[in-house]
């Protein structure tokens, strides 16, 4: 059970930096009360953030990623269950991977 001072310092530095990222944006917003345009941009942010996160990640997975993503969206839309949607996504990736391997082996 070791706790080295240099490791502890690195961890505390990361923790402080991360907390400032989490809370700093809101603290600035509260202090400055930005103009209405900035406020409307922030209201529009959630969708674009996760599009910008997910699209490159899906592109990295190639065609299997896009097919699996369509399955995830369909299951989430109809079942409204995050667990079902996530499991279908993993299942689709596993199934499509097996299918691809089978085709390549022929």
């Amino acid at each position: 059970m070791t706790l080295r001072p240099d490791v502890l310092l690195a961890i505390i530095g990361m923790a402080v930096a991360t907390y400032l990222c989490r809370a700093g944006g809101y603290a600035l917003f509260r202090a400055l009360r930005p103009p209405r345009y900035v406020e409307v941009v922030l209201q529009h942010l959630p969708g674009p953030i996760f599009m910008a996160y997910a699209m490159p990640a899906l592109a990295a997975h190639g065609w299997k990623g896009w097919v699996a993503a369509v399955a995830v969206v369909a299951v989430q839309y109809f079942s409204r269950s995050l667990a079902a949607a996530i499991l279908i996504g993993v299942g689709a990736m596993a199934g499509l991977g097996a299918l691809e391997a089978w085709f390549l082996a022929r």
Partner: protein
Amino acid sequence: MTEEIKGPVVFTRHGVARGIRTALPLVIGTFPFGLVVGVISDQKGLSWLETLLMSALVFAGSSQLLALELWSEPAPILAAIIAAIVVNIRMAPMGAALAPWLDKLRGVKLWGSMAFMVDHAFALSAAEQRRGGRDAGYLLGIGVTLWCFWNISVILGHILGSTVRLPAGHPLYFAAIATFVAILVPLWRGVRRDFWPWLLAGVLAVLAWKAGLGPPWPLLIGAFAGAALGAWLELRRE
């Protein structure tokens, strides 16, 4: 404004409990990731106590992973801090976007909720806020649940060490991406408001990634361009 909250914002045990129930399925996506962080932490020579402290205090998987990739002897204090800022700066606008709830909170409820805020908690809270939800305890409930399971998964990964090493490209890793794809569904407010902003965000992020830009640039470029377009379209319609 279209998203004005009707009625007073509250912070109740009921809201926290609902956040906890909402967060439980998300663990499917975070658990494999936590195992990987724990395994790598072990490989880099961190003790279980150091690993647990990093998970509990930093609680931001991608930045922990990046810092561990850069790990050296002695611990790279400055590099770890820079890794944390670069990866986590994306969370700065999230709190501001939740201002309609957060403005009504004070003290430890406000700054404590911020400590546990992660991407999932933000996305689901933004969706809840748009549905007219007024209980800000929801944000904390999701955050705390993910924090508990995050620590468990990282420590489990550290204990199991090299025995649980999932090969790169294992379908289980897709759970994290699937989580965010699924979260997009409740955030969607219809073609008129969201189609062009979301398309621009996705296309720009892919182009930035193809151009070889590392994190967080594809995400920041796509997110802000999309949100700026959405705001411009909305204000023009008024």
